């Protein structure tokens, strides 16, 4: 796991969280998905639910996102939601 994921969670009016992480778990319309470094490029629709981010140092961040989508490319994960907040 050489390259950590670059994660940013953005909502309509501000950037909720951004940083590096080893794993992101999100809930899409098809079910929960876990993303590690090197994941293939993907665009998915999010179901409203919890996003769990495991940071590089092992600490965890949780966020609530509503009506949005998730994109993965080049080890960059972008979670975009109309309304999102950290829990």
């Amino acid at each position, binding site marked *: 796991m050489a390259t950590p994921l670059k994660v940013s969670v953005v909502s309509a009016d501000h950037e909720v969280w951004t940083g590096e992480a080893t794993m992101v778990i999100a809930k899409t319309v098809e079910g929960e998905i876990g993303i590690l470094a090197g994941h293939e490029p993907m665009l998915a629709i999010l179901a409203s639910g919890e996003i769990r981010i495991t940071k590089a140092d092992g600490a965890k961040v949780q966020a609530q996102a509503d009506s949005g989508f998730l*994109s993965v490319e080049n080890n960059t994960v972008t979670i975009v939601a109309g309304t999102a907040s950290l829990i």
Partner: protein
Amino acid sequence: MGAQLRVYRQKIKSAQTTKKITRAMELISASRIQKAQARVAASTPYSRAITRAVSAVASYSNVDHVLTTEPEKIERAAIVIFSSDRGLAGAFNSNVLKASEQLAELLRSQGKEVVYFLIGRKASAYFAFRRRASVRTWTGGTDSPQFETAKEIGDALLESFLTPASEGGVDEIHVCYNRFISMLVQEPEVVRLLPLEVVEGVEELDSKTVLPLYNFEPDAEKVLDSLLPVYIESRLFNAMLQSAAAKHAATQKAMKAASDNADGLIRDFTRLANNARQSEITQQISEIVGGADALSSAK
């Protein structure tokens, strides 16, 4: 005190009071511009992410979407006007209304019927005064736009767009708003929102950055289905934020001009008042001297 002098003093006092108000408003809007600009900046990551995603879907799938296809015949077009709730902002509102009138004229000359969606009390007052109809109006909260409002507007516009023209729907949607260019320059901007034409409009992607081959979940069509409304909402929200920032800048400019004007008035009236006072004194002296002369010559 002579009558003339009293009138001038009154005018000076009134100009001073007005100046106090306009100065205060100038300072208030100056501080609000900062906030409004910060909000525009804060919403940029969101619109950038959405634009990127939409261009990714659009360029890697040949999905025809109802929101991107041009209708064969455009019968009815909608104009969305973003104005402000309060006046005292110079030509801010009249600029955007003028731009929308021009657009309406153009659309009518193309044989399209024009309907209106209005945002802000000023636009709705303009329409009410002229007894013109609008489909929907949203008032209040233009000073600090909420995303929920953008969502509401987006939903209403989409619903109207997806209704066939024969049942009262529209085939085309234009938005009209003031873009914040700098503290001194705000320009009315007219953009066609629907059907979407250039997807990569907001932010040109670098030609070097090749968009990767995405995997869509559940599939490209569904992703586009849910992405496009969000994209539209983000465009609307951006227009609202731009308009709010522009409004504050326009208010600041107008109030600065008003304060400067008041300064000029106070100066001019002070001169006139001094003049009146002086001539009053001169008159009194000549009266006394004239009186004394008359007395001494009568002896």
